[in-house]
């Protein structure tokens, strides 16, 4: 049972996701990166679930997938709103409020 490979992959995905969230300016891309992170989590859960031979891991993963869908929906809605108001979705342009 190659747990470590799964974990490494998960870690990698997570890292990529984090990078994406922090580095990409395009709002949509940021959302995608977040998806990456969540999937990394799912990968971990499933892997651990197998290792411990319990079902709750997969159940958790399913919950996350469902919730993630909702999240992205909201996220896209917000991005759309911004686009309508600012004609831009570059997340780093939004700094009306600071300090």
């Amino acid at each position, binding site marked *: 049972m190659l747990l470590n490979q799964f974990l490494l992959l998960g870690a990698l995905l997570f890292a990529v996701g984090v990078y994406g*969230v*922090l*580095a990409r300016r395009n709002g949509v891309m940021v959302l995608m990166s977040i998806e990456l992170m969540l999937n990394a989590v799912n990968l971990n859960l499933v892997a651990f679930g197998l290792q411990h031979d319990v079902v709750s891991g997969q159940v958790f993963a399913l919950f996350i997938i469902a919730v993630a869908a909702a999240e992205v929906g909201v996220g896209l809605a917000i991005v759309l709103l911004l686009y309508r108001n600012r004609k831009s979705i570059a*997340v*780093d342009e*939004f*700094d009306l409020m*600071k300090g």
Partner: protein
Amino acid sequence: MDWILENAFLIPLIPAVSFLVILLGGRSVIGAERVHKVGITAVGIVWVLSMLAAVSWITRVEDSTSYKSDDAEHAQIAVNEGLSAASAGGLDGELHLAAEDDGHGADGGGYATTEPVISEVDGWWSSSGVDFAVGTLVDGQTVLLLIVVTSISLLVHIYSSEYVKGDRRFVHYYAFLSLFTASMLFFVMAQNLVQMIVGWELVGVCSFALIGHWWEERPNTDAALKAFLTNRVGDIGLLVGVIILFGTFETFSIDEINTKIGLASQGSGPHPEHFALLMASIALMAAVCSKSGQFPLHTWLPDAMAGPTPVSALIHAATMVVAGVFMIGRLYPVFFEGFSIGTSSINLMAFIGGFTALIGAGLAFAQWDIKKVLAYSTVSQLGYMVMALGVGAWTAAMFHLFTHAFFKACLFLGAGSVSHAAHHTFDMREMGGLRKHMPHTYKTFVISTLALAGVFPFAGFWSKDEILLGAYEGQEGAGSFLFLGQYPLMLIFGCVVALMTAAYMTRVIWYTFWGEYRGHGHPHESPKVMTVPLWILAVMAVVAGAFNLPTPVLEWAGLEGLAHLVQTYAEPTHYLNAIGLSHPPPSFWLALVGLGLALAGIAITFMYFWRNAGPHGLTERNRYAKAGYTFLEQKYYLDHLYTDIVVGSIKRPIARAANWFNDNVIDKVVNTAGEGARDSGRWIYRWIDQGTIDNTVNALGTGADSGGQGLRVMQTGKVQNYGSLLFGTAAVVAIVFVIVL
């Protein structure tokens, strides 16, 4: 018969009431122009009461002792006997109770000492479970002062009703005269040290108020402040001294303290630490210096002449200024042991007294203001008294206090009368030839002068002679220095001062009453209201000496019974015998010396002025003489020392410095604390400098403020920076924990 002695509290109470009456009802009810009647009545009553007190005290002494010591040997016996009595009384530690029953109670074989009458109420204040009583202590010394104070005060009250008539503050004047009388009486019958402090301070305030009576003029108020503050300086000594005594004897009661020392010196009681007594004596000496105008704190007294003349007569000549002397006499055992007067041949008190007497006399020469002359003369005479106490001549000192009160008061009132006549000036250069215009004043003035100079048979002669005698004989068992007796230096001082006194007083007479009138206006004799008191005092100045004549003088008349009245009746034998105080036998030739000096002084001055002999204009020709004269004129520059240097340096620089310290250092401490906070905020570079907007002294705030300003840089407003911060921290914390744990 002892009723008045046990209810002596009435005596100060009455004038106190009259003070309130005058103050509150003065203008409205009584009417400003009639208030003096209230005051005079009150003091009159008090005078009668004091006389009653005197009589009943004398009878008390009579009952308590069938024997009067008339010479030293007997005195010794009396002492020893008395001691057994004292110790007998002392051992049960309930002295003041023993005092209530008659004097015989304690005495073994007829040689008894008279115990003071102490009546007190407990619970005046209390601490650590101990109740401190308030009450009165009446004995010979008290009675003596009662007589002096009430008599002079009464006369001054009467005199003032003319002298101060029509003054803008007639009412306040009489109010404070009453208050002063009350406080002074309260002081002299104080039963414990705290009461003594109270009275002491109160008379000070009255003097403050009366010196500053005409407070519109700056000099008067300055003088008043000077008087009060100088006295406060001395009061440090008073407070500390009293505290030391309390620490040593665990009581404020004068009676207990004196008795304990008495017992100790007889070995029949625990011995108080001599060092403590010495310290206490020195501290109290400071108080005496301020109140009784002793060197170096005497400088306020001449300035105090800014007050109305009757006030000077009452407060700054006859009564208040002798408070210090009285206090020494009251606590004599303390000083006697503390300065070991009995055995030393010089001590602080004696020296200060003698020295003051000397410089006072010296200064009196350089004055043109008649009141100033009298003031310095007072200083000098007070020095005489203190010196007397310093050499162990208790009786002499009190006797001199007694006589001096009368003739000095007379002199002051005389001066007042003169200025009343001569256009309210006190400058002798504007007087002269007044003897023709105001005979009464002149006569009384001369009489008192003779008394002050110590010419036989006037009062001053007798008292001064006793002081010299005391200085010469000192106490039994003390070594004698050459032929000059136990206190040679004091003896010399005494003699020199006797000479000078006579001299400068004669000078006053010359400038004031002889020669041609140099002032303006037409001088005239003062009305009866003023001259009658003068005459009364003058008479006293003649006869007062009779109250303590030495035995030999009376032997030929077979009147030994009347000898040493003051010594017999006024002396608190109960305390003084216990410490083994002896009375020197009279000495004829010493009396001669004293008289001779006085006459010599008069003679020299007479030659100098009347016969125009001697080195006239010396001060102009000889620069040493001139220097000396200016030195005197400048009062030894002491005032410069005090006002300019001491006060000046405190009030201006130091206080300023303190204030500066307050504003710039103390506040800045908080400041710097804040600086720290600010620097800590500076690690977030360039934002800090624009911080510190509301720059308050509370820089802790400022620092925090700018710290916050700095921290705001975290808040870039860019969501991704937030994200990086979040994840970065997470990673860092995780790593740190992994490493640490």
